[in-house]
């Protein structure tokens, strides 16, 4: 397994942008729990609390015309990729102004405009089509890159194996981002995989396997920058594994009890937002940091307000044609 080179250091502006996005993600997600309890939003809600450095650091290196595809635990990737919080929340509230007009819900969002394409809550279901996106880029001679995010649990799924194999074989411009948060639902990863590091499997697909501290946004950024550059150059895929931790339960329906207290406490000390704040603290004054927090909070408040006051999706949305229309010229 290759070590990520210490190149591609993010600029201060980039760090600031990532910081705001991490805080936006955290605050946005924190708001979902009380809203769910109050019955204002529905369906199981999964958050990436504690994993923001991985999600934001990895997507920070993508261009707008690159793609990211994600899972049920995708809010960080969305915010990172530039998807507006308004559209995300409105979708979760099932509003007409949601990214998908409330048809998709929180587990299945997509935003073509910002290159979120898309979300799949079938564990392992995303990588096969991400590889297809990368195939399209290769056929088109484009230098766009597809990033496919999935969890440590998903790595045991056959679809992910098939996707990595063909990507390695054809040197497709895809980055596999495996966010290893130590659990697949309630089951610890040690009970799902006999090996601790999923990136150890990369050699079996002839691609670099890179493992980084997933709570260190700089490390994630650097490793992702290298992987994306490699893909963009046409040198093929990378399996990038970020070691992180899910600080809250699996979802809003989780009854908990299986994440040991000491484990949670140990990881709390490594909170990625706190860590980035410390790094930024070397260059910025506390007031400046506070202003960024306020900016993030403002974005989140605005998005909640937007979502809650948007109209519900009209019933007409159910009675749309089953098929996309065939153009007249076609037949």
């Amino acid at each position, binding site marked *: 397994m290759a070590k990520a080179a210490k190149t591609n250091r993010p600029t201060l502006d980039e760090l600031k942008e990532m910081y705001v996005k991490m805080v936006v993600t955290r605050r946005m997600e924190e708001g979902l729990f009380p809203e769910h309890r109050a019955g204002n939003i*529905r*369906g*199981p809600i999964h958050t990436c609390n504690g994993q923001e450095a991985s999600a934001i650091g990895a997507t920070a290196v993508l261009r707008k015309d690159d793609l990211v595809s994600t899972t049920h635990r995708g809010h960080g990737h969305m915010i990172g990729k530039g998807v507006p919080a308004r559209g995300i929340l409105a*979708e979760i509230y*099932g*509003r007409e102004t949601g990214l998908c*007009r*409330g*048809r*998709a*819900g*929180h*587990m*299945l969002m997509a935003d073509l405009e910002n290159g979120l394409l898309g979300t*799949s*809550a*079938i*564990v*392992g*279901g995303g990588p096969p089509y991400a590889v297809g996106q990368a195939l399209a880029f290769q056929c088109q001679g484009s230098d766009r890159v597809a990033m496919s995010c999935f969890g440590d*649990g*998903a790595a*045991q*799924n*056959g679809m992910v194996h098939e996707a990595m194999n063909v990507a390695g074989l054809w040197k497709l411009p895809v980055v596999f981002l495996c966010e290893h948060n130590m659990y*697949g*639902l*309630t*089951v610890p990863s040690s*009970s*799902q*995989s006999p090996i601790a590091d999923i990136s150890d499997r990369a050699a079996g697909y002839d691609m670099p396997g890179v493992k980084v501290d997933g709570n260190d946004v700089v490390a994630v950024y650097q490793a992702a920058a290298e992987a994306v550059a490699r893909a963009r150059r046409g040198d093929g895929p990378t399996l990038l594994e970020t070691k992180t931790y899910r600080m809250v339960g699996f979802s809003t*329906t989780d009854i908990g009890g*299986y994440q040991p207290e000491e484990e949670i406490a140990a990881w709390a000390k490594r909170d990625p937002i706190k860590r980035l704040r410390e790094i930024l603290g070397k260059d910025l004054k506390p007031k400046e940091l506070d202003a960024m927090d306020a900016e993030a909070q403002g974005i989140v408040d605005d998005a909640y307000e937007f979502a809650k006051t948007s109209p*519900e*999706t009209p*019933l007409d*949305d*159910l009675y*749309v044609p*089953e098929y996309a229309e065939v153009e007249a010229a076609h037949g």
Partner: protein
Amino acid sequence: MAELRYAEALNQALDEEMARDEGVILLGEDIGNYGGVFRVTKDLQEKYGKSRVRDTPISEQVIAGMAIGASMMGMKPVAEIMFADFLPLVIDALVNQASMMNYSWAGQVTIPFVLRTQGGAGAGAAAQHSKSLEAMVTHIPGIKVVMPTTPADAKGLLKSAIRDPNPVVFLEHKMLYNTKGEVPDGEHLVPIGKAKVVREGDDVTIVATSRMAILAEEAAELLAKDGISCEVIDPRTLRPLDVETIVASVEKTHRAIVVNEAWRFGGYGAEVAATIAEMAFDWLDAPVGRIGIHDLAIPFAKPLEAAAIPDAGRIAEAVRETLA
């Protein structure tokens, strides 16, 4: 008799069968320490140990494959697939392996496993976690498909399924886990292959599966107020289907409505409707009505989802139409 929730009745069935037969083992995601995301396997790992109650990786294909292989060697695996939406991942194991082994290998083996899963809409879980895909398994010969509606049937059918020498796909419904009902203690076996006449009536026969059977009863209540008498039949076993009970009812009522939560086109309801139309042809006074979920990906937003799912009102309306 005790009043139990559907999930508890299933848990009791598993518990009793595990106590009775050492060969019964459980396989699935989050079924061990956590007791299953719908609590059906609660406390069973603690009671029967980690060898008999195994949390698996998120590998549906091999969950089904292991159930097949282990059952061949004398075990009675009960595998859980967390959502019916993931059934597509195990259909190869069912149709290309489990389905053919007993026949193609000329009876050398039986494959006595149970594959439990749950489907259905209504929880705001959207397109990938709300489907009713029974049509994909009821088409497969050599496999039995069971779909209980009440807690008592859930227990009695699961116990029968575990003792059955054939592969049985056992379809639960996420909106039923918390429903309550009287459940006989101990040895309560509901035979596979027998439909249940849930309510007797004269004017029209409603054949309805799973949660739809409950809505059909509600519709029958509504209609009774207008003097319309419905017979409601819950097939309970989808394959092999108890054609006799259904046809006998239609011979009495001369009209039928089939309600199945799945997509209508090519759904399980088509088989039931076609069978009634064929077998009760001479008795039918009106076309067999067929109701399913709206024929598109299941939407998330509450009003859309609610409009997509058949409800008592739509069933009642269909009954009125058939009588018109």
